[in-house]
């Protein structure tokens, strides 16, 4: 089975795009660095999850609570601050209010240093997302939709949501394929 990622359309003109990517990467690296200093302050490692683990982060990260991995439960994600996005999606009907945590905060919390993130879903779907996305857009890991916890049956427990309704530029396949639902793992690369 080919991943949905393989259906990604060609990227915009290479020259301008590369320039943007470089700039965005630089910004992202700066953001991650700043976040690192903050995140490091409380403890050397990451707290242990108390509830059910709903997200595992591996790859280029500095803060872990398991062998080379950061395992997070809902409470840990919620403690990073919540963000709301009211948007339409191509898979749901009407406007929906998604609530979750900003991706950049999650990555900062685990001391991520990579340039991209591979998102893996329970249903074996996977998509690679450039780290610049999280810096330029308000991308969240949604755990609630219209005030209700997302279950696997509602495409939960975590769903990567972009603010499509706010930004027209995001309403295309490039970003739709990055909206991974039933997310279980992030690999920072």
């Amino acid at each position, binding site marked *: *089975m080919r991943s*949905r990622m393989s*259906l990604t*359309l060609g990227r915009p003109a290479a020259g301008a795009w590369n320039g943007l990517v470089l700039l965005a990467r630089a910004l992202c690296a700066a953001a991650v660095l700043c976040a690192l200093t903050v995140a490091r302050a409380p403890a050397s490692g990451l707290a242990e999850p108390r509830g059910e683990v709903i997200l595992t982060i591996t790859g280029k990260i500095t803060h872990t609570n398991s062998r080379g991995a950061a395992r997070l439960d809902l409470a840990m994600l919620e403690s990073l601050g919540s963000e709301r996005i009211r948007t339409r*999606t*191509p*898979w*749901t*009907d009407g406007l929906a209010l998604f609530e979750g945590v900003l991706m950049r905060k999650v990555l900062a919390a685990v001391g991520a240093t990579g340039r991209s993130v591979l998102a893996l879903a*329970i*249903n*074996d*779907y996977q998509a690679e997302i450039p780290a610049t996305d999280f810096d330029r857009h308000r991308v969240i890991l949604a755990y609630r939709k219209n005030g209700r916890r997302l*279950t*696997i*049956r*509602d*495409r939960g427990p975590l769903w990567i949501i972009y603010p499509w309704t706010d930004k027209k530029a995001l309403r*295309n*396949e490039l970003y*739709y394929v990055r909206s991974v639902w*039933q997310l279980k793992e992030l690999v920072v690369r």
Partner: protein
Amino acid sequence: MMRRWLNPSYLALSMGLVVLAATAFLMLSGIQRDITQAERDFRGNLVWFATRIDYDRVQLLNELNAMTSRNPPATGNEFARRFDVFWSRINEAGSGVMGQSYMTLPGAAQAIARAKTLLQLIESDAVDLKPGDVERAARIRPALNALSNPLQQVVLQSVQRQADLAVGRRAKLRSRFWQAIVLFVAAFLTAGTLVVLLYVEKQNVAKLRDDLEQRVNQRTRELGRINKELQSANNNLRDFAMIASHDLQEPLRKIRSLANMLSKDLGALASDDSRYALDVIEESAVRLSSLVAALLRYSRLSNAQIMLESVALDSVVSQICEDLDEQIEEAGALVEYDALPHIMADPVQLRQLLQNVLVNALKYRQKERGCRIRIAAHENSAGVTVTISDNGIGFSEEYNEKIFEPFQRLHRQGDFEGTGIGLTLCAKIAERHGWNLSAEGRPGKGARIILDIPKENLRDAA
């Protein structure tokens, strides 16, 4: 103008432009539509969507097999998650843009409805399934297998629709191709017509220019010829005037001398009538002689070359006054003049001009009061104006211009002597110098002769 626009080239150009604009519009709007359609096609990528549903069924089945294998997993968590994934696929199948497209595929609605029913049937078994629970697994497996065919059929339908879309897109691309060909041909024709029009226009302009040049040359030649003819006629006329006036003097002299001789011979014998007749003949001859002499002067003046030099006006006036000493005294006249400027002029002709004017002023004085002549000059933006005014008998305004015509006399012969050529000569001299001579007069109030000398004919006294 109408004919110009009816010209076939312009017609072709207009048509080319219209076709060009229309095709370009069609193409651009078509391409815009294609882009929108392509986006919709992708979002409605039904093959992907349909395949994912069956994929999740197969994964669930695989996990079910694992649960009943010899080495089953420690917990049933993974199976439960897979079940929920499949459950969400089936229950959310009709939502969103893609879901709506999916449901329009033949057999999709039925397949999904069947799946929902079967899932509800096996839900309790699936939730409670523990590793190694063969009994529950045996109830779940047939339901999942039963969904295989309908879901696969929908996948095939989605492939078919995708193929149809591809065919439609190819047809559209082909029509775009032909539109591009039309656009190209129209552009080519339009450009070609433009080039032809420009070429023709250029030729026309060149031809017009040549025509114009030829006409100008012809006119110039004609004017040159006419000028030459005029000059020759003028010369002939001048020669004629000179020869005539010269040759006329001879018979006139004979008339005068013979009339004189006749008068002496007849002496006392002559009757009063005869004496009167002889006197008239003699006087007439004298007068005619002076007229011919004046004509000769005029003719010579026209031929004479002008030798320009800087001349002090006041010294010229003072010389004239010396020359006219007797006449001034006889008239009891007073000639006044201010400091006068230097001008560029032929000294002889300038002197003749001023002298004629002064003589006229002395001649046409009022007998009963003292004659006063005043010569003044003042500068203005155009040059210098010299005025010679007197308090003589003057003349009526209607003669302001006539006064300069040859042999014009405003008075009877008996009242004032003269040939009537004096001011004509003055006008001729002024004209040849590029000056303007005019006259103003009022009967009994004197006359004023005005000489306008343009700036370029002046020379600073310094």
